[in-house]
């Protein structure tokens, strides 16, 4: 992948790039949160207002999906969402690396969600009832249902991690290929031969237009959408673990 990806703008020797940029995302989030909550006012203005709007979106989603008990999980969901959204948007800046385009970051997030929703479910209804629920509604189906349930639970973190990683990495590879194609066409035109100028100039111009007018807006959309979907699925899993307690 290093062959077509642009090397990152700054790198700490001995530290993997995705870790460096995870720290950068953490610094950005901490600075923004600290600046927004430094002087809290009853009538919010500016940055505090913006952050409150963002968090209210998370709150309304939690109310919709998880229900009346959902606001307890705001720290987890909002942290995941803001971290993933910031990481995704960081990858759009040329020369910076999106931490979410490395599978280790996304797998870490997915494993946190995996263990957390099991923990929530076990704490809500006790270990025995939670395990019993894996057996399905009818006792003689339990051996089959147990295997199916275990595999479906194991597939959840896998698909969470791979979805985010695949979307981000796929977008980056697509962008890198298009940019290298544009640079190739431009340098072909710059070489000065007649077919090079005739084909290379309009070709590279078209590719630049395509990138700026379609690919980048699409990638911004995907960045927001993937963060939303990650949060949404985490909330759904938590809601699944909770509402089994209410309808035994």
């Amino acid at each position, binding site marked *: 992948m290093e062959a077509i990806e642009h090397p990152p703008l700054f790198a700490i020797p001995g530290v993997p790039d995705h870790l460096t940029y995870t720290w950068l995302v953490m610094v950005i989030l901490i600075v923004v949160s600290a600046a927004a909550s430094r002087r809290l006012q009853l009538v919010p203005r500016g940055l505090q207002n913006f952050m409150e709007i963002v968090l209210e979106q998370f709150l309304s989603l939690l109310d919709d999906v998880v229900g009346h008990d959902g606001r307890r999980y705001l720290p987890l969901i909002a942290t995941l969402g803001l971290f993933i959204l910031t990481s995704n948007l960081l990858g759009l800046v040329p020369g910076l690396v999106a931490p979410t385009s490395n599978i280790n970051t996304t797998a870490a997030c997915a494993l946190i969600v995996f263990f957390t929703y099991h923990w929530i479910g076990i704490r809500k209804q006790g270990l025995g009832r939670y395990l019993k629920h894996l057996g399905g509604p009818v006792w003689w189906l339990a051996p089959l249902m147990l295997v199916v349930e275990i595999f479906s639970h194991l597939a959840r973190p896998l698909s969470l991690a791979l*979805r985010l990683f695949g979307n981000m990495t796929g977008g980056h590879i697509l962008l890198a290929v298009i940019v290298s194609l544009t640079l190739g066409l431009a340098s*072909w035109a710059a070489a000065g031969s007649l077919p090079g100028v005739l084909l290379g100039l309009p070709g590279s111009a078209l590719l630049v237009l395509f990138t700026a007018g379609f690919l980048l807006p699409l990638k911004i959309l995907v960045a927001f959408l993937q963060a939303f979907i990650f949060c949404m*699925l985490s909330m759904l899993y938590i809601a699944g673990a909770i509402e089994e307690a209410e309808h035994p």
Partner: protein
Amino acid sequence: MRLVFVLTVVAVAAVLAGPSGVWAAEAGASGGWVGPFAVIAAGIGMAIASGLCALGQGRATASAVDAMARQPGAAGRIQTAMIIGLALIESLALYVFVIAAILLFVQPVK
């Protein structure tokens, strides 16, 4: 149609006569006979996966838009369900993408 033709000509010309020697040199340097087949498999697999994924997502979106047109009041919840469904469908294509990326970049079998 003409635009597509021009784009095709440009792409073919870029591949044939353009400065794409870097990639060709890279492909030649790795050696072995599995490498080219891995590239072909990655391309064909990704094409099949994204094509079928597009069919599935098209069906899902079509019925979601249909439902939204019939029940505009429930548009928000239908849209949320549609996005979750699209994400779950898309993850199947992304599995193939991960396998294609492994074939192309990691190359477990030389």
